[in-house]
């Protein structure tokens, strides 16, 4: 039977990781976002340094700042998860250790992301 698919269609998803350039692409998209988000974050920290609790809470309750802080956290953590995955794949060669490290990376990044996000939401909802 004639295969009607394009050459690209035939090989798509057949790479060693089965996800083609997705890792690279997501790494770059989060990197572009981070240039803006981290710039915001740095200036937020500078303006909040030494602020008393009321000022801090009032700032974090601004909806725009809450949303940007959530993006800083989620995009940042996704970016770092991708980066650490590459470091592990480069240096950890034993299959068992590599699997453990890759899982630990996901657990750590998810925990940091959710702990920070829940904290921001709690403050911004005034809990």
């Amino acid at each position: 039977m004639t295969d009607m698919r394009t050459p690209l269609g035939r090989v798509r998803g057949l790479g060693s990781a089965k996800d083609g350039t997705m890792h690279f692409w997501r790494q770059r998209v989060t990197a572009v976002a981070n240039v803006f988000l981290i710039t915001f974050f740095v200036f937020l920290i500078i303006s909040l340094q030494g602020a008393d609790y009321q000022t801090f809470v009032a700032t974090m309750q601004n909806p725009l700042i809450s949303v940007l802080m959530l993006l800083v956290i989620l995009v940042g953590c996704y970016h770092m998860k991708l980066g650490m995955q590459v470091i592990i794949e480069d240096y950890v060669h034993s299959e068992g250790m590599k699997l453990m490290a890759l899982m630990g990376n996901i657990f750590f990044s998810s925990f940091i992301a959710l702990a920070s996000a829940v904290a921001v939401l709690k403050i911004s909802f005034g809990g």
Partner: protein
Amino acid sequence: MANADLKANRPLSPHLQVYRLILTMLMSILHRITGAGLYFGTVLVAFWLVAAASGPEYYEFANAVFGSWFGRLVLFGFTWALMHHMLGGLRHFIWDMGRGFKLEAANWMAKATIIGSVSLTILLWIIGYMVR
């Protein structure tokens, strides 16, 4: 011939130890080290936010930790790692667009990355102390 033998005796490609350290290589290594440092540095961000969400006393405690001389030293390092990794990332965007591969360009960008990251860090801290 035993397969295991073949596997054990396979030649390995040379790694870092056979190369003379050059600036672009150092920037590549620093990009990875600062990335890994920032990865673990997020614990500080999570600690700060969770403390603030736990009430005024915990918020003051976190502020005292970060305001101590050691806390400031760590935050100064954190700032530099952030700036260095960001400038390194911008350099990667330039390479992604197919530019900056010539030796002079690559060397120029490597110098700009290190000078830029140190200058930006100092500048941000000067701004930080000025607006207090």
